[in-house]
């Protein structure tokens, strides 16, 4: 699959709903880790065994009607920009880029389902949807899981689905939701929220960047434990805490927008940066986009009211900028091309 085909894939989580183009909740993702019982785990398998896993999965996928509209990609046949696009579209983990040649990726044409073969586990089934839709994502992931049952997954009555790393054993499930929390970030509430979430068996972390800081105020809430709770309980827990954070963010925004000239100034400066900058770093671009998205959601009047911020947020990511130029770029060139792209997009309005 080349860069053009990947760019043509829909990214429903970026576009948001028709009724409400943007929201605090950006996306919901469910990932299931599975291993084939008859083979050693990826870290201890030989190249031949990994190739055999890849072939078995390929045959199972081809025979399964559920995957009729899916593309089968071999990673080594893809150029670096195409691979970068898949990571930025969150259809593939960054770790999947490193490692052995015997790796495959199954992508559905709706941009929702992706299955990584021979990542840390033999299979990583992932469903990515827009908005808060973890229950729906789990339903789809479970249907795929059932459809691939013929592969004979490693399972134990006591421990559940067996995985290479003990942190995934049991359900093998990681449910996560990405939230846009600029007001909570500005009011410096995130470190406390992050600390609290650990006590609930959840992890809140920056979706871009690490730890308590996050470029573009994007945070991910996910379950930390995978054993002892059912898949439904785990997703409900993440959804419940996610919904609570949405409420807190909303309250924090009300407080921030309450006649704050400073915030208004920052928002207009962000607009100025995007419209006039000749070089734009990724962190700065995401910070500006975050502020303007929040201003739009708060109903602030200005030229930023009509902009579709979600897709633009994806377009400024490095591989997307390089795909637009059709070649690999140095950092400085990327920054110049990013500024150009943003100016053009906003200038068209």
């Amino acid at each position, binding site marked *: 699959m080349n860069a053009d085909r990947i760019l043509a894939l829909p990214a429903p989580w970026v576009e948001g709903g028709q009724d409400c183009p943007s929201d605090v909740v950006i996306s919901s993702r469910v990932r299931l880790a599975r291993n084939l019982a008859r083979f050693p785990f990826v870290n201890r398998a030989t190249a031949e065994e990994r190739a055999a896993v890849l072939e078995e999965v390929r045959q199972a996928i081809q025979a399964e009607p559920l995957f009729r509209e899916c593309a089968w990609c071999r990673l080594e046949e893809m150029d670096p920009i195409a691979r970068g696009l898949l990571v930025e579209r969150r259809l593939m*983990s960054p770790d999947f880029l490193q490692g052995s040649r015997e790796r495959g990726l199954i992508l559905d044409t709706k941009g929702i389902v992706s299955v990584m073969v021979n990542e840390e586990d033999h299979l990583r089934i992932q469903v990515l949807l827009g908005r808060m839709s973890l229950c729906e994502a789990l339903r789809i992931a479970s249907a795929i899981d059932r459809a691939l*049952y013929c592969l004979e997954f*490693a399972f134990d009555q006591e421990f559940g689905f*067996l995985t290479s790393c*003990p942190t995934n054993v049991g359900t093998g499930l990681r449910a996560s939701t990405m939230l846009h929390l600029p007001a909570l970030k500005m009011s410096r509430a995130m470190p406390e929220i992050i600390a609290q979430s*650990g006590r*609930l*068996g959840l992890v809140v*972390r920056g979706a871009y960047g690490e730890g308590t800081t996050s470029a573009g105020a994007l945070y991910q809430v996910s379950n930390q434990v995978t054993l002892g709770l059912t898949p439904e309980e785990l997703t409900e827990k993440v959804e419940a805490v996610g919904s609570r954070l949405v409420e807190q963010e909303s309250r924090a925004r009300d407080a921030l927008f309450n006649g704050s000239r400073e915030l208004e100034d920052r928002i207009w400066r962000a607009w100025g940066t995007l419209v006039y900058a000749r070089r734009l770093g990724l962190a700065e671009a995401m910070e500006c986009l975050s502020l303007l998205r929040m201003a739009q959601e708060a109903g602030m009047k200005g030229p930023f009211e009509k902009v579709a911020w979600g897709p633009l947020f994806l377009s400024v990511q490095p591989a997307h900028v390089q795909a637009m130029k059709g070649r690999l770029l140095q950092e400085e060139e990327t920054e110049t091309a990013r500024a150009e792209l943003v100016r053009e997009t906003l200038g068209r309005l």
Partner: protein
Amino acid sequence: MLCERCGKNTAEVHIRQAIQGVVSEHHLCKECARELTSGWKPGSNFLEFSIGSFLENLCKTLGPEPQEQGKATRAVPTCPRCGLDFEGFRKTGRFGCAECYRAFREWIRPLFTRIHGSETYRGPAPGQGTSSVQGMDDELERLKIQLKEAVSEERYEMAATLRDRIRILEGRLRGERG
């Protein structure tokens, strides 16, 4: 804040662990931190280390002590299928195959309790769908009891989270029952 490992002492050491780019935080008391981390130095309050060392250190405390190995009545197990021995698992924190779980069964239960707070799987068996309506009913009952407790103990943040979970579960049950 109490130490998340022993639940007794005040957490004074805050650890950020990165599991393949996924960063999470842990809050431990000095004793537990000292036990789990070889790199901990008195006076330093913030440690950053990779999954390798964090998980390795969790695993290191499993099974017999190295000096007792010769005297141990039970031999340290080796996986009959992939040949990974328990020592190898302790070092890497990774299993080699499905059979390792069976071979190391009684040695790894404490690890699962430490990581997940549980050592038993709950959920559908392979090939089955989501958990049954009966299972959801039981869960709803359990959550309602927890909510009552949380309210009576004035733990309002917890109560709010539980209320949200009850609302979501009730919605799903309505959907299941049509």
